[in-house]
Protein backbone atom coordinates (compact mmCIF):
# COMPACT_ATOMS: atom_id res chain seq x y z
CA UNK A 1 0.00 0.00 0.00
CA UNK A 2 1.45 3.35 -1.00
CA UNK A 3 1.70 5.94 1.77
CA UNK A 4 2.88 9.54 1.69
CA UNK A 5 4.91 11.37 4.30
CA UNK A 6 3.30 14.27 6.15
CA UNK A 7 3.81 16.01 9.48
CA UNK A 8 1.48 16.20 12.41
CA UNK A 9 1.62 19.33 14.53
CA UNK A 10 0.16 18.96 18.02
CA UNK A 11 -0.68 22.09 20.00
CA UNK A 12 -1.72 21.72 23.65
CA UNK A 13 -2.91 24.86 25.33
CA UNK A 14 -5.59 26.86 27.11
CA UNK A 15 -9.14 26.39 25.82
CA UNK A 16 -9.36 30.14 25.30
CA UNK A 17 -7.01 29.68 22.36
CA UNK A 18 -9.18 27.18 20.49
CA UNK A 19 -11.14 29.59 18.37
CA UNK A 20 -8.04 31.63 17.55
CA UNK A 21 -6.04 28.58 16.52
CA UNK A 22 -8.90 27.33 14.33
CA UNK A 23 -9.00 30.74 12.68
CA UNK A 24 -5.24 31.12 12.34
CA UNK A 25 -4.21 27.79 10.83
CA UNK A 26 -6.22 27.95 7.59
CA UNK A 27 -4.27 30.83 6.00
CA UNK A 28 -1.07 28.83 6.52
CA UNK A 29 -2.50 26.08 4.34
CA UNK A 30 -3.91 23.60 6.85
CA UNK A 31 -6.86 21.68 5.38
CA UNK A 32 -8.31 20.55 8.67
CA UNK A 33 -7.77 20.03 12.37
CA UNK A 34 -8.91 17.88 15.26
CA UNK A 35 -9.45 19.15 18.79
CA UNK A 36 -10.00 17.31 22.05
CA UNK A 37 -10.44 18.45 25.64
CA UNK A 38 -7.55 17.57 27.91
CA UNK A 39 -6.12 18.39 31.31
CA UNK A 40 -2.52 18.44 32.41
CA UNK A 41 0.36 20.20 34.02
CA UNK A 42 3.62 21.90 33.12
CA UNK A 43 5.70 24.98 33.89
CA UNK A 44 2.60 27.08 34.45
CA UNK A 45 1.18 24.67 37.00
CA UNK A 46 -1.59 22.13 36.77
CA UNK A 47 -4.67 22.82 34.69
CA UNK A 48 -7.31 20.41 35.97
CA UNK A 49 -10.23 21.59 33.86
CA UNK A 50 -12.26 22.04 37.06
CA UNK A 51 -13.70 25.37 35.87
CA UNK A 52 -13.80 27.62 32.81
CA UNK A 53 -10.42 29.25 33.20
CA UNK A 54 -8.70 25.98 33.79
CA UNK A 55 -9.51 24.00 30.70
CA UNK A 56 -7.05 22.90 28.07
CA UNK A 57 -7.38 21.60 24.54
CA UNK A 58 -5.15 19.52 22.31
CA UNK A 59 -5.28 20.33 18.61
CA UNK A 60 -3.65 18.21 15.96
CA UNK A 61 -3.08 19.31 12.40
CA UNK A 62 -1.88 16.95 9.70
CA UNK A 63 -0.15 18.86 6.96
CA UNK A 64 3.09 19.30 5.05
CA UNK A 65 6.32 19.88 6.95
CA UNK A 66 6.41 23.41 5.62
CA UNK A 67 2.90 24.29 6.76
CA UNK A 68 3.46 22.64 10.13
CA UNK A 69 6.62 24.61 10.78
CA UNK A 70 5.06 27.90 9.73
CA UNK A 71 2.05 27.34 11.99
CA UNK A 72 4.31 26.30 14.85
CA UNK A 73 6.40 29.44 14.45
CA UNK A 74 3.28 31.60 14.33
CA UNK A 75 1.89 30.05 17.51
CA UNK A 76 5.24 30.35 19.22
CA UNK A 77 5.48 34.06 18.43
CA UNK A 78 1.87 34.99 18.92
CA UNK A 79 0.72 32.95 21.91
CA UNK A 80 3.52 31.25 23.79
CA UNK A 81 4.65 34.40 25.56
CA UNK A 82 1.35 34.86 27.39
CA UNK A 83 -0.40 31.50 27.26
CA UNK A 84 0.31 28.00 28.48
CA UNK A 85 1.14 26.19 25.27
CA UNK A 86 3.03 23.02 24.40
CA UNK A 87 3.79 22.02 20.83
CA UNK A 88 5.44 19.14 19.09
CA UNK A 89 5.84 17.81 15.57
CA UNK A 90 5.97 14.22 14.42
CA UNK A 91 6.24 12.26 11.18
CA UNK A 92 3.13 10.53 9.94
CA UNK A 93 2.20 8.83 6.69
CA UNK A 94 -1.17 9.12 4.98
CA UNK A 95 -2.96 7.40 2.14
CA UNK A 96 -4.52 10.43 0.47
CA UNK A 97 -1.78 13.07 0.19
CA UNK A 98 -4.04 15.59 -1.53
CA UNK A 99 -6.22 15.70 1.59
CA UNK A 100 -3.56 17.34 3.78
Amino acid at each position, binding site marked *: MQTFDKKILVIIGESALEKFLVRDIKPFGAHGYTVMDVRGGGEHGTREADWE*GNRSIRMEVICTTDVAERIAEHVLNKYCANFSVTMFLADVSVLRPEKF
Partner: protein
Amino acid sequence: MDPVVLFFLLGVAARLAKSDLKLPEALYETLSIYLLLAIGLKGGVELASQPLLQVAPQAFGVIIMGCALPLLAFPILRRLGGLSQANAASIAGHYGSVSVVTFAVASAYLSKSGIIFESYIPLFVALLEVPGIVVGILLARMNQNRDISWGALAHEIFLGKSVVLLGGGLLIGWACGAQGINPMRGLFFDLFKGVLALFLLEMGLVAASRIADLRRAGTFLLGFGIIVPILFAMIGVGVGRAIGLSVGGTALMGALAASASYIAAPAAMRIAIPEANPTLSIGAALGITFPFNITLGIPLYLHFATWLEQVLPR
Protein backbone atom coordinates in the same frame (compact mmCIF):
# COMPACT_ATOMS: atom_id res chain seq x y z
CA MET B 1 -25.11 30.17 58.53
CA ASP B 2 -27.11 29.51 55.40
CA PRO B 3 -27.02 25.83 54.38
CA VAL B 4 -25.75 26.70 50.91
CA VAL B 5 -22.61 28.08 52.54
CA LEU B 6 -22.11 24.75 54.30
CA PHE B 7 -22.02 23.11 50.88
CA PHE B 8 -19.26 25.51 49.96
CA LEU B 9 -17.34 24.63 53.10
CA LEU B 10 -17.86 20.93 52.39
CA GLY B 11 -16.23 21.46 49.01
CA VAL B 12 -13.35 23.39 50.51
CA ALA B 13 -12.81 20.75 53.17
CA ALA B 14 -12.98 17.89 50.67
CA ARG B 15 -10.40 19.59 48.49
CA LEU B 16 -8.03 20.54 51.28
CA ALA B 17 -8.25 16.96 52.51
CA LYS B 18 -7.28 15.89 48.98
CA SER B 19 -10.51 13.97 48.54
CA ASP B 20 -11.10 12.39 45.13
CA LEU B 21 -14.45 14.18 44.98
CA LYS B 22 -14.73 15.86 41.59
CA LEU B 23 -17.85 17.18 39.90
CA PRO B 24 -18.00 16.52 36.16
CA GLU B 25 -17.02 19.50 34.00
CA ALA B 26 -20.38 19.27 32.25
CA LEU B 27 -22.18 19.54 35.58
CA TYR B 28 -20.25 22.65 36.57
CA GLU B 29 -21.06 24.14 33.17
CA THR B 30 -24.73 23.17 33.44
CA LEU B 31 -25.13 24.56 36.94
CA SER B 32 -23.66 27.92 35.99
CA ILE B 33 -25.82 28.11 32.86
CA TYR B 34 -28.84 27.34 35.01
CA LEU B 35 -28.01 29.94 37.64
CA LEU B 36 -27.41 32.70 35.10
CA LEU B 37 -30.65 31.95 33.26
CA ALA B 38 -32.71 31.54 36.42
CA ILE B 39 -31.46 34.77 37.99
CA GLY B 40 -32.10 36.59 34.73
CA LEU B 41 -35.60 35.17 34.39
CA LYS B 42 -36.47 36.00 37.97
CA GLY B 43 -35.26 39.56 37.57
CA GLY B 44 -37.01 39.95 34.23
CA VAL B 45 -40.31 38.77 35.63
CA GLU B 46 -40.06 41.32 38.41
CA LEU B 47 -38.93 44.02 36.04
CA ALA B 48 -42.05 43.41 33.97
CA SER B 49 -44.11 44.74 36.87
CA GLN B 50 -41.97 47.85 37.34
CA PRO B 51 -42.31 51.31 35.77
CA LEU B 52 -39.09 51.33 33.73
CA LEU B 53 -38.89 55.11 34.04
CA GLN B 54 -38.41 54.72 37.77
CA VAL B 55 -35.72 52.04 37.38
CA ALA B 56 -33.80 53.87 34.63
CA PRO B 57 -32.14 56.54 36.82
CA GLN B 58 -31.20 53.87 39.37
CA ALA B 59 -29.68 51.80 36.59
CA PHE B 60 -27.70 54.82 35.50
CA GLY B 61 -26.27 55.31 38.98
CA VAL B 62 -25.38 51.63 39.14
CA ILE B 63 -23.46 51.81 35.87
CA ILE B 64 -21.53 54.84 37.08
CA MET B 65 -20.49 52.83 40.12
CA GLY B 66 -19.41 49.95 37.89
CA CYS B 67 -17.09 52.30 36.02
CA ALA B 68 -15.74 53.96 39.14
CA LEU B 69 -14.76 50.89 41.16
CA PRO B 70 -11.91 49.65 38.95
CA LEU B 71 -10.51 53.18 38.84
CA LEU B 72 -10.24 52.99 42.62
CA ALA B 73 -8.79 49.49 42.67
CA PHE B 74 -6.15 50.13 40.01
CA PRO B 75 -3.91 52.59 41.92
CA ILE B 76 -4.08 50.40 45.03
CA LEU B 77 -2.89 47.41 43.01
CA ARG B 78 -0.27 49.44 41.17
CA ARG B 79 1.16 51.52 44.05
CA LEU B 80 0.64 49.40 47.14
CA GLY B 81 0.77 46.08 45.35
CA GLY B 82 3.54 47.04 42.96
CA LEU B 83 1.83 44.98 40.28
CA SER B 84 2.47 45.44 36.57
CA GLN B 85 0.05 47.65 34.65
CA ALA B 86 -1.46 44.58 32.97
CA ASN B 87 -1.96 42.67 36.20
CA ALA B 88 -3.29 45.67 38.09
CA ALA B 89 -5.70 46.51 35.28
CA SER B 90 -6.93 42.92 34.95
CA ILE B 91 -7.52 42.54 38.68
CA ALA B 92 -9.21 45.94 38.83
CA GLY B 93 -11.52 44.74 36.04
CA HIS B 94 -12.39 41.57 37.94
CA TYR B 95 -13.30 43.57 41.05
CA GLY B 96 -15.12 46.20 39.04
CA SER B 97 -17.39 43.53 37.64
CA VAL B 98 -19.62 41.33 39.80
CA SER B 99 -20.13 37.74 40.88
CA VAL B 100 -23.59 36.42 40.08
CA VAL B 101 -23.33 33.65 42.65
CA THR B 102 -22.32 36.05 45.41
CA PHE B 103 -25.47 37.95 44.54
CA ALA B 104 -27.51 34.74 44.74
CA VAL B 105 -26.07 33.89 48.15
CA ALA B 106 -26.71 37.43 49.37
CA SER B 107 -30.35 37.36 48.25
CA ALA B 108 -30.77 33.98 49.93
CA TYR B 109 -29.29 35.42 53.11
CA LEU B 110 -31.67 38.38 53.06
CA SER B 111 -34.71 36.20 52.38
CA LYS B 112 -33.66 33.91 55.20
CA SER B 113 -33.36 36.95 57.49
CA GLY B 114 -36.79 38.09 56.34
CA ILE B 115 -35.47 41.32 54.82
CA ILE B 116 -37.21 42.45 51.66
CA PHE B 117 -35.40 44.02 48.71
CA GLU B 118 -36.15 45.31 45.23
CA SER B 119 -36.78 42.10 43.32
CA TYR B 120 -35.62 43.59 40.00
CA ILE B 121 -32.03 43.97 41.21
CA PRO B 122 -30.85 41.17 38.87
CA LEU B 123 -31.10 43.90 36.24
CA PHE B 124 -28.34 45.75 38.08
CA VAL B 125 -26.30 42.54 38.22
CA ALA B 126 -26.45 42.31 34.43
CA LEU B 127 -25.63 46.01 34.10
CA LEU B 128 -22.68 45.72 36.47
CA GLU B 129 -20.99 42.85 34.68
CA VAL B 130 -19.67 44.80 31.74
CA PRO B 131 -18.50 48.31 32.76
CA GLY B 132 -15.85 47.12 35.18
CA ILE B 133 -14.36 44.87 32.53
CA VAL B 134 -14.29 47.63 29.92
CA VAL B 135 -12.61 50.09 32.27
CA GLY B 136 -10.12 47.43 33.30
CA ILE B 137 -9.15 46.91 29.68
CA LEU B 138 -8.81 50.63 29.10
CA LEU B 139 -6.53 50.85 32.13
CA ALA B 140 -4.34 48.15 30.62
CA ARG B 141 -4.12 49.96 27.28
CA MET B 142 -3.57 53.39 28.83
CA ASN B 143 -0.45 55.17 27.53
CA GLN B 144 0.40 52.29 25.26
CA ASN B 145 0.59 53.13 21.58
CA ARG B 146 -0.72 49.62 20.80
CA ASP B 147 -4.31 50.18 19.64
CA ILE B 148 -7.26 48.05 20.69
CA SER B 149 -9.49 46.12 18.28
CA TRP B 150 -12.71 47.15 19.99
CA GLY B 151 -14.80 45.03 17.68
CA ALA B 152 -13.21 41.81 18.84
CA LEU B 153 -13.27 43.02 22.43
CA ALA B 154 -16.92 44.05 22.39
CA HIS B 155 -17.60 40.57 21.07
CA GLU B 156 -15.68 38.94 23.91
CA ILE B 157 -17.40 41.10 26.49
CA PHE B 158 -21.01 41.29 25.35
CA LEU B 159 -21.31 37.83 23.81
CA GLY B 160 -19.71 35.90 26.63
CA LYS B 161 -21.73 33.15 28.27
CA SER B 162 -22.77 35.08 31.33
CA VAL B 163 -23.93 38.30 29.67
CA VAL B 164 -25.90 36.39 27.05
CA LEU B 165 -27.62 34.11 29.56
CA LEU B 166 -28.25 36.71 32.24
CA GLY B 167 -29.38 39.29 29.68
CA GLY B 168 -31.34 36.74 27.69
CA GLY B 169 -33.07 35.53 30.83
CA LEU B 170 -33.92 39.10 31.78
CA LEU B 171 -35.42 39.78 28.35
CA ILE B 172 -37.45 36.57 28.26
CA GLY B 173 -38.67 37.05 31.81
CA TRP B 174 -39.55 40.64 31.07
CA ALA B 175 -41.31 39.74 27.81
CA CYS B 176 -43.35 36.88 29.30
CA GLY B 177 -44.02 38.20 32.78
CA ALA B 178 -44.86 36.09 35.79
CA GLN B 179 -47.72 34.30 34.11
CA GLY B 180 -45.79 33.32 31.01
CA ILE B 181 -42.88 31.99 33.04
CA ASN B 182 -45.15 30.19 35.49
CA PRO B 183 -45.07 26.78 33.74
CA MET B 184 -41.26 26.89 34.07
CA ARG B 185 -41.26 27.69 37.78
CA GLY B 186 -40.68 24.02 38.51
CA LEU B 187 -37.25 24.11 36.96
CA PHE B 188 -36.07 27.69 37.20
CA PHE B 189 -37.50 28.79 40.56
CA ASP B 190 -38.31 25.77 42.74
CA LEU B 191 -34.92 24.15 42.22
CA PHE B 192 -32.92 27.34 42.50
CA LYS B 193 -31.75 27.07 46.07
CA GLY B 194 -30.74 23.44 45.69
CA VAL B 195 -28.84 24.05 42.49
CA LEU B 196 -27.10 26.98 44.15
CA ALA B 197 -26.03 24.63 46.94
CA LEU B 198 -24.66 22.10 44.47
CA PHE B 199 -22.82 24.81 42.59
CA LEU B 200 -21.31 26.11 45.81
CA LEU B 201 -20.06 22.61 46.58
CA GLU B 202 -18.19 22.72 43.28
CA MET B 203 -17.05 26.30 43.92
CA GLY B 204 -15.63 25.11 47.21
CA LEU B 205 -13.53 22.53 45.43
CA VAL B 206 -12.36 25.12 42.91
CA ALA B 207 -11.73 27.92 45.41
CA ALA B 208 -9.63 25.67 47.63
CA SER B 209 -7.20 24.94 44.80
CA ARG B 210 -7.07 28.60 43.84
CA ILE B 211 -5.85 29.54 47.31
CA ALA B 212 -2.96 27.14 46.85
CA ASP B 213 -2.07 28.86 43.57
CA LEU B 214 -2.29 32.23 45.23
CA ARG B 215 -0.07 31.37 48.15
CA ARG B 216 2.77 31.15 45.67
CA ALA B 217 1.79 34.59 44.38
CA GLY B 218 2.61 36.58 47.50
CA THR B 219 0.67 38.01 50.40
CA PHE B 220 -0.43 41.43 49.15
CA LEU B 221 -3.39 39.95 47.27
CA LEU B 222 -4.57 38.11 50.37
CA GLY B 223 -5.09 41.44 52.10
CA PHE B 224 -6.41 43.10 48.96
CA GLY B 225 -8.99 40.37 48.49
CA ILE B 226 -10.56 41.09 51.88
CA ILE B 227 -10.00 44.79 52.52
CA VAL B 228 -10.99 46.14 49.10
CA PRO B 229 -14.29 44.25 49.02
CA ILE B 230 -15.15 45.81 52.39
CA LEU B 231 -14.31 49.28 51.07
CA PHE B 232 -16.25 48.63 47.88
CA ALA B 233 -19.19 47.36 49.92
CA MET B 234 -19.32 50.69 51.73
CA ILE B 235 -19.38 52.47 48.38
CA GLY B 236 -22.02 50.08 47.12
CA VAL B 237 -24.14 50.66 50.19
CA GLY B 238 -23.77 54.37 49.73
CA VAL B 239 -24.78 54.18 46.08
CA GLY B 240 -27.67 51.90 46.93
CA ARG B 241 -28.94 54.38 49.44
CA ALA B 242 -28.32 57.31 47.08
CA ILE B 243 -30.47 55.77 44.34
CA GLY B 244 -33.19 55.20 46.90
CA LEU B 245 -33.10 51.45 47.42
CA SER B 246 -34.55 49.79 50.51
CA VAL B 247 -32.26 48.52 53.26
CA GLY B 248 -32.25 45.09 51.63
CA GLY B 249 -31.52 46.51 48.20
CA THR B 250 -28.78 48.68 49.68
CA ALA B 251 -27.16 45.64 51.28
CA LEU B 252 -27.31 43.81 47.95
CA MET B 253 -25.61 46.75 46.23
CA GLY B 254 -22.90 46.44 48.85
CA ALA B 255 -22.50 42.74 48.13
CA LEU B 256 -22.39 43.38 44.36
CA ALA B 257 -19.75 46.10 44.71
CA ALA B 258 -17.74 43.84 47.01
CA SER B 259 -17.97 40.85 44.70
CA ALA B 260 -15.46 40.05 41.97
CA SER B 261 -16.37 38.44 38.67
CA TYR B 262 -15.11 34.91 38.05
CA ILE B 263 -17.00 34.07 34.85
CA ALA B 264 -17.30 37.10 32.59
CA ALA B 265 -14.11 38.91 33.60
CA PRO B 266 -11.62 36.02 33.44
CA ALA B 267 -12.81 35.03 29.97
CA ALA B 268 -12.68 38.57 28.63
CA MET B 269 -9.41 39.53 30.32
CA ARG B 270 -7.59 36.44 29.10
CA ILE B 271 -8.21 37.66 25.55
CA ALA B 272 -8.02 41.40 26.11
CA ILE B 273 -5.04 41.49 28.47
CA PRO B 274 -3.21 38.23 27.73
CA GLU B 275 -0.04 39.51 29.37
CA ALA B 276 -1.83 39.60 32.73
CA ASN B 277 -1.33 36.52 34.91
CA PRO B 278 -4.72 34.91 35.50
CA THR B 279 -3.42 33.10 38.58
CA LEU B 280 -3.35 36.41 40.41
CA SER B 281 -6.78 37.74 39.44
CA ILE B 282 -8.53 34.39 39.86
CA GLY B 283 -6.61 33.52 42.97
CA ALA B 284 -7.81 36.72 44.61
CA ALA B 285 -11.36 36.69 43.24
CA LEU B 286 -12.13 33.00 43.73
CA GLY B 287 -9.63 32.06 46.40
CA ILE B 288 -10.06 34.97 48.80
CA THR B 289 -12.90 37.36 48.01
CA PHE B 290 -15.60 34.87 47.07
CA PRO B 291 -15.19 32.76 50.23
CA PHE B 292 -14.92 35.88 52.39
CA ASN B 293 -18.02 37.46 50.91
CA ILE B 294 -20.34 34.48 51.20
CA THR B 295 -19.26 33.67 54.75
CA LEU B 296 -18.43 36.90 56.62
CA GLY B 297 -18.88 39.64 54.04
CA ILE B 298 -22.59 39.51 53.33
CA PRO B 299 -23.72 39.74 56.96
CA LEU B 300 -21.26 42.60 57.43
CA TYR B 301 -22.61 44.46 54.40
CA LEU B 302 -26.11 44.13 55.76
CA HIS B 303 -24.86 45.75 58.96
CA PHE B 304 -23.52 48.63 56.88
CA ALA B 305 -26.91 49.05 55.24
CA THR B 306 -28.90 48.96 58.47
CA TRP B 307 -26.41 51.26 60.19
CA LEU B 308 -26.70 53.75 57.36
CA GLU B 309 -30.46 53.57 57.68
CA GLN B 310 -30.21 54.45 61.35
CA VAL B 311 -27.71 57.30 61.21
CA LEU B 312 -29.40 58.71 58.10
CA PRO B 313 -33.14 57.97 58.20
CA ARG B 314 -35.15 58.93 55.11
